[in-house]
């Protein structure tokens, strides 16, 4: 190999090395950028709702409670059920009409006054962390015996400290067994209902 060929090869390798370093740096920058974007989740991913029924099974003709526990992602808040600003969207839960089942009351937890970077002087009435909404349900004689389902829709609008996500409706399915009238229902999830009652 001549000296000229050798120096060409060195130059070529240096070029490849420079290209590789630049490309790798670009890749890292791209990964960081992707993480920044992923810092804002889809609205439906901010809150995870879970539903619990107070009796197992539920005797037909009796009243029972449903606790909808909503876990709000760290760094986010949703408006309480009673935000002060009339333009803000309250957190609500609504049931779709279901034969033999009637929502006779809904209890929302109290919100917390919190200040944010965009609202340093005006506290907002919000939910953060974990909160529980209680629904009082009456089962009528026309309710379907056996495996039952009460479809609910949770609506909320979430923000972090600098930006807000669009309001969203999230389905919550409540599943339970409905037994003939006179069956003795066992109280279940009592710790959830006790804790929720204390915070309302």
């Amino acid at each position: 190999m001549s000296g000229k060929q050798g120096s060409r090869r060195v130059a070529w390798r240096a070029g490849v090395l420079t290209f590789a370093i630049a490309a790798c740096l670009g890749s890292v920058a791209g990964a960081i950028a992707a993480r920044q974007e992923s810092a804002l989740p889809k609205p439906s991913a901010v809150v995870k709702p879970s539903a619990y029924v107070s009796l197992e099974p539920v005797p037909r003709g009796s009243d029972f409670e449903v606790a909808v526990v909503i876990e709000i992602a760290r760094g986010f808040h949703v408006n309480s059920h009673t935000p002060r600003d009339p333009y803000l969207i309250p957190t609500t839960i609504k049931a779709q009409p279901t034969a033999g089942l009637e929502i006779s009351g809904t209890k929302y937890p109290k919100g917390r006054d919190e200040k944010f970077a965009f609202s340093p002087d005006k506290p907002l009435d919000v939910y953060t962390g974990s909160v529980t909404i209680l629904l009082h349900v009456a089962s009528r004689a026309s309710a379907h015996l056996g495996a039952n389902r009460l479809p609910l829709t949770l609506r909320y609008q979430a923000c972090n400290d600098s930006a807000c996500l669009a309001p969203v409706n999230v389905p919550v399915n409540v599943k339970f067994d409905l037994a003939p009238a006179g069956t003795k229902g066992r109280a279940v999830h009592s710790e959830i209902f006790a804790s929720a009652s204390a915070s309302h």
Partner: protein
Amino acid sequence: MRKVFGGILGLALAGVLGVAGCGHNTVSAGSSAGSSSVGLAEPQVTFKDLQGASVPLVSLKGKVVLVNFWATWCDPCQAEIPTLIGLQQKYGDKGFTLLGVAMDDDGKSVVEPFVQKTEFTVDGQKRTMNYPIVLGDDAIAQKFGGLIGYPISFLISRDGTIQKKYLGMLNAKEMDQQIESLLSSAPAS
């Protein structure tokens, strides 16, 4: 040595693919952010104003435009409105305009009373929104690359190129610098 260079080439290719795979928008809360839409021509989109008239974005070509996506339910959007009023007041007669795109699902029925009645304190004075407001929807949001969070703003130069994208509340000083810089560039011929 060949193995070493093979590895380097592999890394290089992976890096290139990594960059290519990052074609989606980059956003960082509360500040300007790089974006795949930055540097591109503004989308061809026509808004409806609160009176129902069509407002093609291209009709604003020749001006520096700050397209601000907001909603009445968005608290940080409300919080930055005094800054936006100030920008329109300061640069509105110098070849700049703000364009507020309201993303409320209920549209005019909720946006119009908000725009007409809500007062904001700007430099110690009560002011209502002093810039054009149009209505947006998901299709329009898609044309801007798909919008997840609000407020989100796009600064567009006189020639219709998206220069900056901002997620979260705008910084007034930064906006002054950016707008003045774009205004000082030659108007599109």
